[in-house]
């Protein structure tokens, strides 16, 4: 259900060049009210430059940033109704936890008593002890510091809250916990969150929509489901994790031929005007051994390695044509066949993903 | 006053010894032996110029170290602080040797038979026995004279004529028209003497309370009317030439000669015609070079004293860098022959004899300490 009004934040042909180097190229993007939007891309993809333009620390070379229809390009950072949680958090070391959280309120001229109340409320909301108010920020743990930074940003009451990979430096378990907390806080506050990260996995956990960036441009925008199931190209598909990628050419209305001679495979959906491209099959949809019998597409090869991946096991198969295949099965449903033996791989046509590039 | 216990006195003695040891330890120690070829001189600028020292270094194949001093009391302080172990020769103004340094054991006497005859060739005022070169008993010869000069005040003769200045003496500075038009060169010891003279008080005698009071009044008046205080004679001459001031309090040949030699002959040291010192209104200083009571004194010390009496060296001492001064050796025609007309004009040779006649010798002021308190308070409390 599309709203007739313009979205909350509109990026219209946003471009940023540093000399000859174009860091962000002609980005068009609508971010909706109350949405958790994540920009994902490898380092150097332009996502940091992008968010710095959005908060006002860099000026776009061309294009427009509109918030509620108002062009923000020339508005300095301190005049924008948005704010950001920094990658290094940028907590003020000379101020206490409470003073850090109150900072935007102090700048806004809120009375000390009122802002203290607000800071205490934010401490509670972020599950921090209220007696942390007078604690030094450098005496707090990594997770606590994250929450303080978030509380400070929330105290600003921004129309959009930006996040510049604030969880990147944390260990795995703490990151997982905070990802979920962040999602909870997003739901509780109903604010618009724009998050950038290099981890699609992190994006998947939290986001309503994801934008994938590559070389300064947006490659695909969609829900986590769409991104996962319908990647628009090999880059997006591979960015999701390890996948089987075959270079193919069209061989009929519902068939493609692997160019190295691995065989011809049936597909369900053929993009229009498809002549040549890539066939992508996720390892977890592959069948192995007897399970592959009767599948529409099969390949035979030699199983030469297996890896335990926590909840799953990954098998590596080298086919007769020389290609390497990945198959993943759940840990409690392992493949019973002999290792280093001849095996058959198979998959359904509807599990095939075809992309042109 | 000594009501303290013996223990406490012992403690203090220990402290003193320790302090002296610490002080001595911080100084450069010289090798005990082999002092035949080295000489350390602590002197007013002039004697330490390379023009003077280099020929001596060559002739005696000696390593000569000379350090210039900037005030007599400073120099004597350093000897008191233990530097008698460093220096071989000390050059300060006339009263210090006889009144302080010799009684305190800081200098040693010279062999009279070698050095006394050298006074014969000097200007008549210095003929032996010259009292300032002798100890109080008149038995020991304590040093050799050389540079000297009348030292009273300096005027710009374009603004105040020599005749007026000499007639009025220090009263020039009390004139209401001179307020804010003169500087005080802060050679503090000299100022105290001249402020005595200004007050009509003999500076080198014990003073009555009334005289001290007159001195106090003069002190305040001189400071309150001054435009500039500085201890830099170049800066003072510059102010005089540039018209910031018309005269400065305390000065003489020593301070005026360099400006005069540069062509500013309107800068002139003045010796008042009359005053409270047995009728005299001017004061003259005489530098005396003495051998330090160094336990390892260099044998070159006496050689250097003889060396600087030579005519060419005397001239170099008189016209060293910075200031130009007459020397007592100018009584010798061979020395006089070294000076040209401009040089003689720089040191005001034309009036030197007359100025000397109108001057009393620089001496010790028995009430110096008390007067200094008054003087420094007047300087601090100055209403500028």
């Amino acid at each position, binding site marked *: 259900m599309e709203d007739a009004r313009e979205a909350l934040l509109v990026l219209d042909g946003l471009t940023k060049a540093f000399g000859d180097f174009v860091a962000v190229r002609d980005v068009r993007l609508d971010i909706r009210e109350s949405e958790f939007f994540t920009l994902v891309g490898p380092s150097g993809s332009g996502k940091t430059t992008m968010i710095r333009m959005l908060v006002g620390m860099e000026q776009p070379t061309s294009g427009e940033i509109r918030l509620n229809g108002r062009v923000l390009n020339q508005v300095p950072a301190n005049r924008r109704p948005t704010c950001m949680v920094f990658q290094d958090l*940028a907590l*003020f070391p000379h101020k206490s936890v409470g003073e850090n959280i109150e900072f935007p309120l*102090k*700048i806004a001229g809120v009375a000390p008593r009122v802002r203290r109340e607000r800071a205490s409320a934010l401490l509670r909301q972020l599950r921090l002890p209220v007696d942390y108010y007078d604690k030094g920020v450098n005496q707090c743990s990594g997770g606590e510091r994250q929450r303080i930074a978030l509380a400070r940003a929330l105290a600003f009451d921004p129309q959009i809250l930006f996040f510049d990979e604030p969880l990147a430096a944390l260990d795995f378990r703490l990151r997982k916990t905070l990802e979920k907390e962040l999602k909870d806080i997003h739901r509780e506050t109903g604010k618009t969150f724009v998050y950038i990260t290099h981890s699609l996995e992190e994006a998947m956990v939290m986001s309503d929509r994801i934008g994938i960036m590559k070389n300064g441009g947006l490659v695909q925008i969609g829900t986590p489901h769409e991104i996962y199931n319908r990647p628009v190209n090999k880059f997006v598909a591979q960015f999701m994790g390890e996948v089987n990628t075959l270079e193919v050419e069209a061989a009929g209305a519902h068939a493609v031929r692997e160019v190295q001679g691995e065989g011809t495979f049936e597909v369900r959906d053929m993009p229009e005007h498809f002549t040549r491209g890539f066939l992508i099959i996720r390892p977890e949809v592959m069948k192995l051994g007897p399970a592959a019998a009767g599948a529409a597409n099969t390949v035979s090869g030699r199983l030469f390695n297996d890896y335990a991946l926590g909840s799953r096991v990954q098998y590596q198969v080298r086919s007769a044509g020389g290609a390497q295949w990945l198959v993943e099965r759940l840990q409690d449903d392992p493949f019973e066949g002999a290792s280093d033996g001849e095996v058959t791989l198979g998959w359904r046509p509807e599990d095939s993903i075809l992309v042109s590039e | 006053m000594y009501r303290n216990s013996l223990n406490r006195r012992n403690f203090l003695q220990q402290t003193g010894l320790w302090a002296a040891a610490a002080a001595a330890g911080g100084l450069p120690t010289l090798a005990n032996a082999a002092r035949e070829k080295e000489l350390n001189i602590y002197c007013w600028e002039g004697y330490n110029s390379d023009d003077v020292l280099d020929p001596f270094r060559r002739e005696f194949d000696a390593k000569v170290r000379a350090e210039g001093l900037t005030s007599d009391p400073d120099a004597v302080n350093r000897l008191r602080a233990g530097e008698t172990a460093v220096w071989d020769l000390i050059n300060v103004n006339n009263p210090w040797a006889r009144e302080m340094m010799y009684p305190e054991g800081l200098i040693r006497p010279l062999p009279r038979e070698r050095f006394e005859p050298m006074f014969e060739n000097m200007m008549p005022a210095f003929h032996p026995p010259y009292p300032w070169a002798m100890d109080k008993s008149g038995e020991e010869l304590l040093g050799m004279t050389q540079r000297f000069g009348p030292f009273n005040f300096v005027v710009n003769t374009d603004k105040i004529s020599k005749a007026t200045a000499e007639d009025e003496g220090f009263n020039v500075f009390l004139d209401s028209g001179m307020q804010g038009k003169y500087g005080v060169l802060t050679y503090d010891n000299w100022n105290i003497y001249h402020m005595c003279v200004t007050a009509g008080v003999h500076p080198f005698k014990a003073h009555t309370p009334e005289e001290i009071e007159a001195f106090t009044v003069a002190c305040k008046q001189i400071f309150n009317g001054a435009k500039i205080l500085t201890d830099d004679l170049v800066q003072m001459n510059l102010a005089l030439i540039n018209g910031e001031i018309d005269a400065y309090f305390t000065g003489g040949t020593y301070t005026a000669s360099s400006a005069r030699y540069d062509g500013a002959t309107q800068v002139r040291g003045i010796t008042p015609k009359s005053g409270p010192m047995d009728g005299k209104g001017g004061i003259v200083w005489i530098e005396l070079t003495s051998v330090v009571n160094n336990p390892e004194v260099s044998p070159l010390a006496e050689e250097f004293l003889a060396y600087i009496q030579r005519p060419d060296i005397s001239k170099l001492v008189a016209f060293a860098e910075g200031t130009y001064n007459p020397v007592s050796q100018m009584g010798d025609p061979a020395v006089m022959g070294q000076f040209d007309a401009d040089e003689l004009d720089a040191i005001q040779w034309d009036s030197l004899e007359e100025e000397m006649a109108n001057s009393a010798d620089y001496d010790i002021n028995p009430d110096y300490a008390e007067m200094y308190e008054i003087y420094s308070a007047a300087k601090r409390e100055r209403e*500028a």
Partner: protein
Amino acid sequence: MSGRPAASERAAPTGVRRWWRRPGPLCAFPVSLFLLAGFAGPLVIVLAYSFMPPRTFSLRQAPTLENFASVISDSYYLSFFWSLFLATTAVLILFLVCYPIAYGMAKLFGRWANLVTALVALPLLISENIRLFGWVLVLLKNGILDGTLQQLFGVSVSGLLYTVPAIVLGLVYVYLPFMLFPLVIGISMVPESLKEAAADLGASRFEIFREVELPLSMPGIMIGGILSFILALGSLAESKILGGQTVIMIADDIESAFTFAQNWPKGSVLSVLLIALSGLIVVMLFRNIDLDRIIGRR
């Protein structure tokens, strides 16, 4: 609770162990000795002299408070006042002058900062008196400034030299590097991201300065301020050369007491009081400003 006695038992032998067998104090011993002799020693001697009878040159006298009494009853408070006033004024002006320059050197000038550093540091190679005398030539009646203005505009500015402002100018000029360089370090210690965060949270340029830059560069400001304040407090040449001793600073009195007055004990008392005053001010400043907190160690 059994851990407590055990811990103290363990601690006991360490405390009793001879200090010269422990590596720390042993290594520090030569330096301590050097500091004691070279730094504490002279101070102790000055302190000892302050209790000696007036105009004595030996420490072997009965101690007395006479000098303290005479200094306090005399008008030395004037010199202390002038020194404090001039040093404070100079430090405030130095801060105002140096902060923008230091900011530029730390953040804006890039490679030109090295040139500025060289230009500021170079005069330090020249004697202070000579540099001050240069200013005399500039400010003198019919001097460089006065003469130029007369020539070009027919305006005369002859009353500049030998005034209190001239002394302040001298102090600011001479002690500029001592304020500037610590400030440069202080300002470059402030992370850019903190300033960006403050701006992002709505702070204006001035609010960023007040809330972030100023407090975080406080270590540099403190060091620069204390350095230049202490130096200015003990300064002498500026009031003599540029001020024409319009006012007498305390260092001037100290010098006179040791030389012309031949009164070492009085000079010592004045020195002791000046050192105590400087120390008191430094201690008070450090007590009120918690550097550890600023640097973020607490």
